[in-house]
């Protein structure tokens, strides 16, 4: 079959670091296929797609579509050529409605100068209808779920008559159900003759939905295959150059002493009907991984904030080693030894413009002072060298952490938090957007903590992660815990899924 999109010999080097993000890359996509683009964090996938979408210009190389060579100078030119991109992180304006976001930049007008909101809503409604989305054009972005935001991004591109859709890691922030809905949408689009390039780290998804696969490693294309010809292990082997183990031996269960305990913790807000957190009680013990899961919007974020001391609770108590720590400050929590790997790595977990070595001492900088009150540079560098090698961080200790790949930023945070760990650590969505190898590394560290007698709390919307790691599993629905049991063969994906959707509830009526 002849190629529809052909990117030839694309190279792109980033100035300061001299890093070759794309090195003579040639990508070939056929009309009507779902083409998976895979590779480790930092392999250069996003860079290649940014070039295709006109956000960046390549240093060299050509792009042709339908056999015609194109210069794509900016996203508007890409849209004109029928190329649309949905970014890794949502690019929507929260205050605007769905329709307003979709038409932004290509607004329908009335009387030559005015924005025609009614026409915008009608046109967007037509696109929604035609492609069978479930969303209403008048809703504000701030009122819709992450999965719906992604639909809006796709609608935005379809409104611009995109024929080739690029989706950069669309599934990493979606729940199981939302992912299935997205895939149904993609299959529907293919039926209508569109073409899709899909970037993802989840190899099961690659197998599930793609027709062909292009694998990138360190800026180069290492292989192109028909999906039917390879299995997940082979794909991961091509990505990292070695075989990755998927199965974990969790190891012995050890000591069990309660370290952290929440008793009837609730958060209520004025104008909100039901409590945001409703009578949450559980214990986390030493040598245990407590897994808490749920669909986004059901209180996981709030629970994360409560445990991290960033959100005051309205009622209930929290104990650490039998001492009451309800509503104490984050600083006091830190002094008691809380280690915390937050969901939001970029804003909460790190200081992006600050160097790696400085990020590594953010929570323990007092230990790096000389007697006269200034930093001991040698000690800091020494510390940073040790952690960089211990945690296999791919990055120099003096560069701003923001220039590292997602996986390596997370490793820096992990190194900082786990190096000081005492008896308790909180992980929240630790592997969002990370490649297989980085995820596996984090799982290993988590199990290592457990083996050392640390109490681990893992908040995650990824069911597989919870099933692989947790000793005790809790499910949240509408701010309440609806299940809490020891993991075991009876607790399958399906059963957990039912709890997540509120179809099952173990604690109803029990107060």
């Amino acid at each position, binding site marked *: 079959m002849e190629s529809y999109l052909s990117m030839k010999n694309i190279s792109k080097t980033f100035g300061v670091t001299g890093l070759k993000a794309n090195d003579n890359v040639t990508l070939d996509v056929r009309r009507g296929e779902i083409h998976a683009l895979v590779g480790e964090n930092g392999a250069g996938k996003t860079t290649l797609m940014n070039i295709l979408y*006109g*956000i960046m210009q390549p240093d060299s190389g050509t792009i042709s579509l339908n056999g015609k060579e194109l210069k794509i100078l*900016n*996203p*508007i*030119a*890409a*849209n004109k050529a029928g190329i649309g*991109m949905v*970014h890794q*992180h949502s*690019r*929507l*304006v*929260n*205050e*605007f409605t769905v329709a*307003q*976001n979709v038409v*932004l*930049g*290509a*607004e329908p*007008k009335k009387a030559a*100068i*005015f*924005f025609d909101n009614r026409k915008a809503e009608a046109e967007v409604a037509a696109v929604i209808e035609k492609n069978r989305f479930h969303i209403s054009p008048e809703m504000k972005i701030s009122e819709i779920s992450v999965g719906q935001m992604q639909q809006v991004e796709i609608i*935005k591109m379809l409104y611009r008559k995109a024929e080739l859709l690029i989706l950069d890691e669309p599934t990493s922030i979606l729940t199981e159900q939302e992912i299935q809905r997205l895939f149904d949408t993609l299959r529907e689009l293919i039926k209508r003759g569109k073409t899709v390039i899909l970037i993802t780290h989840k190899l099961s998804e690659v197998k599930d939905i793609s027709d062909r696969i292009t694998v990138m490693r360190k800026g180069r294309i290492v292989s192109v295959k028909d999906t039917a010809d390879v299995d997940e292990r082979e794909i991961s082997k091509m990505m990292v150059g070695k075989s990755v183990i998927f199965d974990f031996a969790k190891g012995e269960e050890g000591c069990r002493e309660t370290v952290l305990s929440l008793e009837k913790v609730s958060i209520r*807000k*004025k104008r909100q009907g039901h409590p945001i957190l409703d009578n949450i009680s559980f214990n986390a013990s030493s040598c245990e991984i407590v897994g808490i899961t749920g669909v986004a919007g059901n209180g996981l974020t709030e629970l994360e904030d409560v445990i991290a001391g960033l959100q005051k609770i309205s009622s209930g108590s929290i104990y650490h080693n039998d001492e009451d720590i309800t509503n104490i400050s984050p600083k006091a929590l830190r002094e008691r030894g809380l280690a915390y790997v937050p969901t939001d790595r970029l804003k909460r977990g790190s200081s992006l413009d600050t160097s790696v070595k400085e990020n590594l001492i953010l929570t323990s900088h007092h230990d790096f002072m000389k007697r006269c009150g200034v930093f001991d540079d040698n000690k800091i560098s020494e510390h940073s060298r040790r952690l960089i090698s211990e945690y296999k961080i791919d990055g120099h200790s003096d560069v701003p952490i923001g220039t590292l790949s997602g996986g390596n930023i997370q490793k820096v945070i992990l190194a900082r938090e786990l190096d000081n760990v005492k008896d308790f650590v909180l992980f929240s969505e630790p592997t969002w957007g990370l490649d297989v190898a980085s995820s596996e590394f984090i799982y290993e560290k988590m199990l290592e903590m457990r083996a050392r007698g640390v109490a681990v709390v893992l908040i995650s919307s990824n069911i597989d992660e919870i099933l692989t790691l947790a000793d005790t599993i809790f499910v949240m629905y509408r701010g309440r815990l609806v299940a809490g049991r020891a993991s075991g063969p009876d607790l399958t994906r399906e059963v957990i899924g039912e709890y997540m959707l509120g179809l099952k509830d173990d604690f109803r009526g029990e107060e």
Partner: protein
Amino acid sequence: MSSEGFSIPIIHNSISIMTPFLLAAIGGLMTELSGMLNIALEGLILIGAFFSVIFAAATGSLLLGILLGILMTILVSWVFGAITIYLKANVFITGLATNLLASGLTAVLSFHIFGTKGVLMFEELPPLPSLNVPPLHKIPVLGDIFFGHNVFVYMSWIIVVIAWFAIYRTPFGFRLRGTGSNPKAMIAIGLNPQNYQMLGILISGFTCGLAGAVLTLNLGAYVPHISSGRGWIALVVIYLGGKTPFGILGAAFVFGLAESFSNYAQGFIDIPADFILAFPYIITAAAMVIMSIVQNRNED
């Protein structure tokens, strides 16, 4: 004195007094919506005040004075914007620099051209035309309050309405707000957020030029540092007005009222003059405190 005789002139005056706040705040709002805090308002007003009066005196035409004054202000705001946006300087530093530049530049030019750093009187300048519609003045209370002001007052109200339409009813307004809320959303659809931030700043140059012109042309004179904190109060007005044009109109009126009252009260209330003069600023402080309390309430 009857209470009506007391309050109507105060309200009437407050409407004149609020005009520069209102104009500066509307322009500042445009910058604010594009995601930047415009702390150069103060300096821009001063530039507008100085140049409009000296150009008006030099050309003998109010209209030319106003136009050239505005042009100069837009020029200065362009420099401020270009350095901040395209050269990526810190907006606090460039904003403060603009304010310092304005006060330095006006003092130097004043000394160089007129030989004094003090007050410049332009007695031959015609007064600003005012809107008098005699039959309407007869409307009880309202007539006295709303008519007989200079044309800038009415122009500022028209600008409020235009600003409302521009912000909420035109593609420009959507893109401006989109820039302020999520610049990456703009980049993703191929629009350059920097251009909209620049437009936000240039519009503030326009309205601050006008605000400055009101100050000096109304007086027929230039007094050093005539902006005297109005740009800063305009910033407060933007926030107090909830970042909407009509909210700003209301907030500006409150400040106009405060200043008008303190002018009036100096005459006969037995309170230290300093305290009365500080009244508008006390209002500012109180307003900020109340606003943050209300905000905290709403979040709980």
